C-alpha cells in the first residue's frame, strides 16, 4: 500500500506493539497474558509494517527469517521443559532459579519460547500470503 501516513505511523506502531507484547508476556505470570498473546501482539506490529511498506521491507527490518525465529522458540520451550532434569524432577516441572533477590522461574523461559514460536509462525504465514498475492 502506498500511503505516507500509514508508512510513518507504522514505525511507531512497531515499537509500541513490541513494547506492549513484552509487557503482556511478563504479565502472563500471574494475570491474563503470556507468551501466546504476546507473540500475537508482537507479530501484529510487523504485520502493520508489512502492509505499509511491503513484506520485503518488513523482512529486512526483522533481519532474521521468521521461520528460524519460530523454530528457535520451539527449541527454547523444549529447553525449559528439559531444565527440570537438572533438578531431578519430571519433564516440564516448573522450578525456581533464585539468585539473591532475583527469582526466575523456568516457566517464564517456556513462555518466552512460546512467544518466539507464535511470533515467527504468524509472520511466516503473513509474509507468505502477502508475497503470494
Amino acid at each position, binding site marked *: 500500500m502506498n500511503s505516507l501516513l500509514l508508512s510513518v505511523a507504522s514505525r511507531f506502531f512497531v515499537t509500541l506493539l513490541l513494547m506492549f507484547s513484552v509487557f503482556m508476556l511478563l504479565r502472563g505470570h500471574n494475570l491474563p497474558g503470556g507468551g501466546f498473546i504476546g507473540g500475537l501482539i508482537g507479530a501484529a506490529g510487523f504485520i502493520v509494517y508489512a502492509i505499509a511498506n511491503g513484506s520485503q521491507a518488513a523482512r529486512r527490518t526483522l533481519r532474521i527469517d521468521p*521461520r*528460524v525465529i519460530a*523454530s*528457535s522458540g*520451539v*527449541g527454547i520451550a*523444549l529447553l525449559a*521443559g*528439559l531444565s*527440570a*532434569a537438572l533438578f531431578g*524432577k*519430571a*519433564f*516440564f*516441572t*516448573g522450578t525456581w532459579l533464585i539468585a539473591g533477590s532475583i527469582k526466575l522461574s523456568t516457566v517464564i523461559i517456556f513462555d518466552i519460547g512460546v512467544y518466539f514460536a507464535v511470533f515467527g509462525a504468524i509472520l511466516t504465514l503473513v509474509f507468505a500470503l502477502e508475497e503470494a498475492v
Partner: protein
Amino acid sequence: MSWIVSLPLIIPFATAVLSFLWRRSHLGGLVSVTGAAAQLVAAGVLMASTWQNGYTVGQMGGWDAPFGITLVADLLSAVMVVITAITGLAVAVYALSEIDARREELGYHALFHVLLTGVTGAFLTGDLFNLYVWFEVMLIASFGLLVLGGTKAEIDGGVKYVALNLVSTMLFLMATGLLYGLTGSLNMADLAQSVRASDNQGLVTVIAMMFMVAFGVKAALFPLFFWLPASYHTPAFSVSAVFAGLLTKVGVYALIRAFTLIFVSDVALTHQILLWAAVLTMITGVLGAASQNDFRKILSFHIVSQIGYMVLGLALFTPLALTGAVFYLVHHIIVKANLFLVSGVAHKLAKGTDLSRIGGLYKTAPLLAFLFLIPAFSLAGFPPLSGFWAKYVVVKASFEAGAFVAGAAALVVGALTIFSMTKIWAEAFWKDHPDGQEPRLRDIALRERLLALAPIAGLAALTVVIGLFPAPFLDLASRASAQLLDPQAYIDAVMPGGPS
C-alpha cells in the same frame, strides 16, 4: 521412570528443531538420521523397562494423575514406540536418497520428525485430550509433508486428506467434551473407572460410538476410508512409506486403547459393530486393490484391507484375538512401509508407478525383485514370513470365538492379496518394459543406491526374523493382550494411591 517414558518423545522433537535450523546444509539430513537412531535407543530402553515392570508411568510436570498429563507405556505402547522408531530410522535413511534440496530447504526433515513426535506421543499418552493434541500434531506435520512438493496432484491429495481428517478430529473433540461433561476427567485410567460407575450408560454408549467413528476415520475403517487411497499415492515415496506404516495404525491403536480400557461396558453392541466393520473393511479394501493398476494405489488399498484384520482382533475381544491384533500391527507396519520404499526404487528405475507403463525389473534389477518378494509374500501371509503368523493367529482366534464368517472372510481376503501381489510382480517385474528400457540398479549412484536399499533390506530381514522365530514375538504380543484385558492393572499403575 518419568524420563524413560518421555525421552522417546523429546528426542524426535529436539531433532525436528535442530534439523530445521540446519536445513540448508548437509547437516540437516545427518541430524535427522542421528535423531532417529537415538529415538530407537530410547525406545529400546523404554521397552526393557516396561518388559521388566509391566508399566512405565511418568507424571509430566510432577502433577499426579488424574490432574496432570500422564505418559503411560504398557507393553502395547512400548512395542508400538519401538516399531515407530524402527520405521522412522529406515525412512530417515531412505529419505537421504530421495528428498531433493528444495524439499529439505522447506523443512522436510523437521516435519518428518514432528510427525514421529506426534505418533510416539499418541502411543504414550494416558490422557484423552493429550491424545487429541498429538493427533493434531500428526495432522499438521502430515499435511505439510503431503504438499511439500507443491505439484497439483499433491495439493489435490492433501486437501482430501485434510478435509476428512478434520471432520474426524472435530468429532473426537466433541466426544471428548461430552465425556468430560459426564465424568469430569480426561485421564484415561480415571475415565475407565468413572465411565463404568456412571449411571447414564446410554450416553456412554453414544460417546463410545462417536469415538469409534472418529478413530475409525483415522484407522481407515469401512466405510470411512476414502481419504486414504485418494492421497497416499501422491507425495514423495518416503513420505507415503511413513504414512502407510504409521498413521492408520495410530487410529487402530486408539481404537484398541479406547475399547479395551474405557468403553467395555456394552461389549455386545460396540464390539459387534467393530466386527462387521472389520469384515467389510477387509473385503472392500482387497477388492479396491484388485481394481487398481498403479503400484502405490494397490498398496494403499491393501492398507485398508489389512486394517480389517487388526480391528477384527479387537472386535473378537478374546486373549488370542488381541494377541493377533498386536502381532498384526507390528508385522504390518514393517511390511507396508517396506513395500512403499520398494515402490520408490521401482519408480526411480522404471520411471513410473503405473503398472501398464513399467516392467522388466526382474531382468534388470533382480536384487530389487528379491527384496520386493519378501514383504509382498509376507503381506499375503506366506509361511514362514511374519504375515503368516499374524494371519494364522487372527483366523484361529475368529474360529475359536465362533465368528466363522469373519474367519472365512480373512482367509478369502488373504487369497485375494496374493492376486494383487502377483499382479504387481507380473506387471512391474516379470514382463518387459513397454518402452524397451533396461534400467539397472548400477545406474544409480553408489551412495544413493546404498541409502535406498539398506533400509529395505533391513526391514525385509526383520520380517524374515519375525517369521522364522515367532515365539518371542508371540510371547510379547500375548503378554500385551493380557495387559489390555486387565484394565485394573493399568488403573493401579497410573494411580497407585487409588481413585481420587
